[in-house]
């Protein structure tokens, strides 16, 4: 009887554990190409958003799409981080500049992957969570108030600050 109980426990454990994936841990990972290893130190200053892994060979549509989504996802995170920092510093001019860059990335993402479904499926960096899409670009104070990007404004920001950010975003040069 005790043996049955022990076996049952082992079986349940095994079934549960089978649903987990440890391959990357067990096999180890490397995004440093063998030829790059000597020069890996030089790569340390490379912005994460602009250096997704090793160079990819774009020999299929799927790879091209993945590369585009990786690059845009990483850029979205990087620019959002700069926007957050500028907002924390109550710098409306800089906040607007980075908001414009975030908007440009969001517009590109919307054109490449409407709804974010592909990014979720490919598990690319910054993919929106289940049931959510990419945030919409924000070009008005109303949209900023409704957008998750509005959460980056400092807690003591008033309407004038939000308006100044939007004005700076609209005036920012397009890259």
């Amino acid at each position, binding site marked *: 009887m005790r043996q049955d109980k*022990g076996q049952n*426990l*082992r079986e349940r*454990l*095994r079934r*549960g*554990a089978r649903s*987990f*994936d*440890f*391959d*990357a*841990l*067990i096999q*180890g*990972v*490397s*995004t*440093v190409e063998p030829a*790059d*290893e000597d020069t*890996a*130190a030089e*790569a*340390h*200053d*490379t*912005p*994460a*958003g*602009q*250096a*997704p*892994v090793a160079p990819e060979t774009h020999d299929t549509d799927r790879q091209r799409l993945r590369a585009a989504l*990786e690059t845009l996802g*990483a850029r979205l995170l*990087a620019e959002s*981080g*700069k926007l*957050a*920092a*500028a907002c924390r510093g109550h710098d409306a001019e800089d906040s607007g500049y980075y908001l414009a860059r975030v908007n440009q990335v969001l517009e590109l993402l919307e054109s490449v992957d409407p709804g974010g479904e592909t990014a979720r499926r490919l*598990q*690319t*960096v910054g993919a929106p969570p289940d049931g959510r899409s990419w945030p919409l670009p924000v070009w008005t104070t109303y949209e900023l108030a409704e957008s998750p990007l509005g959460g980056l404004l400092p807690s003591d920001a008033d309407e004038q600050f939000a308006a100044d950010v939007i004005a700076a975003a609209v005036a920012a040069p397009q890259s």
Partner: protein
Amino acid sequence: MKVVAVVNQKGGVAKTTTVANLGACLAERGKRTLLLDLDPQANLTVGVGVPWYELDASLHTVLLDPDESPLASVLHPIADLPLYLAPGHLDLAQTEALLLPHADKAYRLRNALETLLEEQEFDWVLIDCPPSLGTLTQNAIVAATDLLIPTEPKFYAFAGMDTLNKMIVSLTRSLRFKVELFGVLLTMFERGTRLHATIAAEIRERFGEKVFETVIYKNVRVSESEVEGLPIILFDRRASGAQNYEALAEEVLLRAAG
């Protein structure tokens, strides 16, 4: 030289205890060893007798301003061993947010460590990671050559390692780094507990020879040594906890030798 990030996003699995005591055991075997306390709780720092609250410089200042606060300038010698600590600090809780705008935020520790290693030699660097998978842990993984995962023999261990696996896969998409699993260490083991034995067997089946033969059993003397600010081998060498970590150090050295 190996740079080992001791990582598990679950708290209370003996990450800090493992870094302090494995580090001391390696140092006692003549290996010049550096401990890095990346946890804002700074338990490792206190656990080896350094009062973080009296410090102006810590890994927080190293990560934020490595020119003003190079890693070499924050090292503290521990006991009379070739053992050094780069202390943690409560301020590390803010580091992640302050690093956010910096494109190289995940590479700060690796860069600081490389600068240090141009001037000083270490055989082992052990990094105590916070119980989270944020920027501080990313810094540890990017700086590391190897990962050591302490884990309790509980079912949640599988979910925790699955999450860590996902995080590593995710990091490969945006960061340049290379890391291998040095080993999985079963900790907080209770003798005579059927569940622990069963789960340990399952972990060994999944991870094979990556799981250390040595098991760290629960031992109150280890907790007492932390109160005294001493690694267990300097507090009570006869304690079973000390013997566990001595055995782990031997196995670690053997494994590193290949």
